[in-house]
Each structure stands twice: as C-alpha cells, then as structure tokens.
C-alpha cells in the first residue's frame, strides 16, 4: 500500500504542476460548455426570438394573434416589395402576406422547424383560431425531464464533460512517455515495482480527476452559464446514478489513456493519436453535433462511438431520470471497452518492454 500511495502522490504532484494538462482537463470543457450552451440556445429553443411582420387586411389583429412562443411582431413594411427587401437583408425573419391565398416570406437562414411552426400558427389564425388557445388544447409532457424539455445547457454539459474526461489521454500519456523516455519506468521496474502496480498508480488519481471534472462541469452548467445569460442546468434527482455514469465513462477514458500511453512512442504521437481520436469520437458520437440533428444513417454510425454510449448514460440520468436499468446497456459497453483497452495496453507493454 505504501508503494501505491507513493505512486499516487507522485502522479498528483506531477499533474498539479502540469498547467497545460490541467487546462485541457478543466478549462477546455468548461469553456466549451459555456460557449456551446449559449451558441445553441436558439437551436434548442431556449430563448428563441423570431421577428415577423404581417401585411394585408386586418394585419394588426393577425400579428397580435401570431405572437408568442418566441415569435415577436415587428413594425410592418410599407408594401410587399419592402417586405421582401427586409427579409433579404435579414431585418425580418418572416413576413406573412395575409389575404385569400396567404404567403409566408421566410429568411432562408431560419431553421426549418421554426418556419414550419410559424406556418402552423398562420394556418390556425387563418382558420379563425388563436395559437395560444390551440396549444392549451393538447398538453405536451416531457417524460422524466425535470424542466420539461431538452435545452442547450442540458445537452452541452454532459456532452463536453464526456469530451473533457476522455482528454485525460493527453496528460496521462505524456507523463508515461516521459517516464519511458527518461528511463524512470525502467528504473522503477528494476527496483522491483511491478508494471500492474505502476498502472494502478495512474488509474486512481485520474479516476478521481474525472469525477472532479464531472462535479466542476455540473457547477459550470448550474452557475456560470446562467451568469452569462443562458439557462441553468437542471440537476438530476439520482446523484448515485450520475456518479455511476461518470464512473463508467471514466473507466473507458482510463483504458483509452493507458492504451495510448503504452502504444505511443513519442509525445507527438500521443498528442496526435489521443487528440484526433477524441475529436473523431466526439464528432461521431453526438458531442459536437447533437445526434438528433444527424440523418438516420449517421445516427447508426454514432452508435460506434464510446462518447455516444457515455452520452446515453448521462442522458438516461439527467434527462429521462431513468433507473439503474436504463443506464445498464451504456454502462456495460463502457466497462467492457475499458477492460479491453486496459488488456490491450498490458499486451502492448509486454510486447515492447520498458
């Protein structure tokens, strides 16, 4: 135990003095969470605001009825030509040309779901109904969602937290490669320190760092994002399951880190393999682009990414408030991957030696 404690203390000291490593582990995901939560807030409808105008008979009443759910009435242009100019210049997103055959002029930059929503509202008004009354007719209940819907912060926090957790590959493999390059690893083995113990000396500190990352990123979502003007993260009811999701993600990330550490010969190799591998897994796994906006075929490919499994586990806890069984498939895949990667790291090390 004394030997393991010495290895842990060394790893902590080394990491605490690796400012680049700490920045990658803590600042990078925190910055991504803040930026992406704000940047995607319109896409997720957190604070959607679309300016529209109505031209034609009874325009004032129609505009008043159309307002709501993020659609805001603006001053109407003088005529259709002016309305087209305003849309073309991006001054207005939508203009309804009311009349016997209503037409909606839409800014091509506006997302299709918003155009469709406006068209449905316009249809309701044309048929003599008020959209606000229609919305009350059918209630939508998001099952298990603590705040009623998926928001950008609810998507961004787990996504970029997972991304940050997998980035332990960089500081972990860097120190390991330096240990091998400088003969420190050989010295430890010559002094009778078994290689599995050396690996165990790395696993525990980084596992705790992953959990610290999880805590800190939740705090960023809860406090920093609203301070910057975004929505606050809704915390899950089951903290134990959240811990389980983070722990399973960490096991996979640790396996990945150790495999790159054992396999890469130089710091440059580790940076490229670890960094690019993470970015590809994130792009594929719905971290950078939410999976629900991907086409069906891409969503099937996304299932190959461990980051997608981790995101499933976090969403099961944070969005759907699922029980342990809901996490099981994703967690089992993450644990199996972690074990396989760890075995591969051992095999590579035995093949290569110190």
């Amino acid at each position, binding site marked *: 135990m*004394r030997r393991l404690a010495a290895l842990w203390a*060394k790893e902590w000291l080394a990491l605490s003095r690796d400012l680049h490593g700490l920045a990658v582990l803590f600042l990078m995901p925190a910055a991504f969470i803040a930026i992406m939560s704000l940047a995607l807030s319109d896409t997720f409808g957190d604070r959607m605001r679309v300016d529209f105008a109505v031209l034609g008979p009874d325009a004032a009443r129609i505009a008043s009825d159309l307002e709501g759910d993020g659609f805001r009435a603006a001053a109407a242009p003088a005529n259709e030509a002016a309305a087209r100019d305003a849309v073309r210049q991006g001054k207005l997103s939508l203009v309804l040309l009311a009349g016997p055959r209503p037409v909606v002029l839409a800014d091509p930059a506006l997302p299709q779901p918003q155009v469709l929503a406006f068209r449905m509202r316009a249809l309701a008004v044309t048929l003599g109904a008020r959209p606000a009354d229609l919305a009350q007719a059918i209630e939508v209940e998001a099952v298990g969602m603590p705040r009623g819907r998926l928001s950008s912060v609810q998507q961004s926090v787990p996504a970029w937290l997972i991304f940050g957790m997998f980035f332990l590959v960089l500081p972990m493999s860097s120190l390991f490669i330096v240990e091998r390059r400088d003969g420190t690893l050989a010295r430890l083995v*010559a002094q009778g320190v078994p290689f599995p113990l050396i690996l165990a000396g790395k696993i525990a500190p980084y596992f705790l760092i992953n959990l610290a990352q999880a805590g800190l990123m939740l705090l960023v979502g809860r406090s920093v994002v609203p301070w910057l003007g975004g929505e606050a993260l809704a915390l899950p009811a089951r903290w134990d399951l959240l811990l389980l999701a983070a722990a399973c993600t960490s096991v996979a990330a640790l396996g990945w880190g150790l495999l790159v550490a054992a396999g890469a010969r130089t710091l440059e190799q580790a940076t490229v393999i670890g960094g690019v591998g993470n970015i590809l897994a994130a792009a594929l796994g719905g971290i950078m682009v939410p999976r629900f906006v991907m086409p069906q075929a891409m969503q099937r490919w996304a299932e190959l990414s461990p980051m997608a499994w981790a995101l499933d586990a976090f969403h099961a806890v944070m969005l759907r408030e699922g029980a342990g069984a809901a996490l099981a498939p994703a967690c089992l895949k993450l644990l199996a991957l972690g074990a396989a990667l760890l075995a591969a790291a051992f095999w590579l090390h035995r093949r290569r030696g110190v």
Partner: protein
Amino acid sequence: MLKIESLSFSYGKTKVLDDVTLSIPDRAVFGLLGPNGAGKTTLISILSGLRRPAAGRVEGDSRNIGLVPQELAFYPMLTARENLRFFGGVQNLGGARLRERLEAVVAFARLDGVLDRRAAELSGGLKRRLNLAIGLLTEPDLVLLDEPTVGVDPQSRAFLLESIGAMRSPARHILYTSHYMEEVQAICDHVAIIDAGRVLAAGPLAAVLGGAASLEEVFLGLTNRRLRD
C-alpha cells in the same frame, strides 16, 4: 562474488551479447568498457531484471539492486526531496527508515542545499548526483552505474568518482560503465572490455593493462579504431 555465466541476448536476429562470462568480486568496482553498441547497456538491463537472457545465468546473492541509468531517470517537475521520497516510497521505505536513508543519501551526494528545488532547475552536476542518490536509497548490494558522469563539469566528475570509490563495502558489487578510460583506470580495480557482445579481456586492472601505458591503449588495441556509429 557475482558470476555472469555464458550470457547471450539478441534483438531479433541481431546478437547483442554472445556467451558473456564475467566474475565481479565483492568490494570491487568493476569497470565495463566497450564502444557504442558493444552490449554494455543490455548487460546492465539483464542484471537489473529488465530483460531476460536468451541463454546463460547470473549467480550471486544480489537481491537489492540500485540502478543508476545513463539517463536522468527522475521527475523533473518534482523537487529533489519529492523525487527521493517517491523513489524511497515505491521501494517500500517509510517512516523513520525513509528519513534515515534520505538523510544518508543527501549527505553522500551533497544535495542538502537543493532539496526543495525542482529537479529540472538543478545544474547538470546536481542532476547526476540526484540520479546517483536515488540509486542508493535502499543500500543496494549490487550497484549498476551506466555512464554516471556524462555531461558534468570536472569538479562534479571528480566528486562523483570519489563518491563511487567511497561506495565500496564488503557485501557490495559495483558495476561501472564509462567511455572515459582515465575514470575507469582511476576508480576500478577490475575491468572487462567487450565488443560486439563478446568479452575481449577481463580481470584485475593490472592484468588487463599488462605493460600498456594506459587503458585507452589497450581498449583501442582490442576494439580497433573503426567508428561504430
């Protein structure tokens, strides 16, 4: 007596050690000489347990090995004290015993004024001394010194050589490799010259020297002047 008997080792098809037999007497500082690629570091790797020989064996009662590699094998981001405590800890030294050994090696390598400086900030000579001190933490009975004076100034070299000489003890074997012939001639009482994995000469220093004026003359005579890398 540490006996190395018929040791062979290959990297793939390249034979690095070929039937190497050597005897290292107790209390001796044994100089192992050879040009680059002769097999010195591979022999040290086998003696330290990092590699297994394809054939042959090492006989002796050395269980406690202190390896002082050619590289500065410590953590540059840690202080000298943290490095010593870490390497002591992973070798199961703790409490009073760790403090006692730490004080002993610090005094031996004269590191007392720099213990709280990061290893990366130490001078070349101090780094070499820290490298040596780490290797001596457990009072090893077999000390493997792989070119321990590379890249240091004459003062540090003189200090290191004196220190290595002072490490002699009845139950200790010291194996010393270097490219500096005058160093080996100054501190070693037994030497072996190897080239291409084979022992060309071995024995007490006087016997290997024969009538030659210097060890360098013997070395170049046996290994010839052909460049090796």
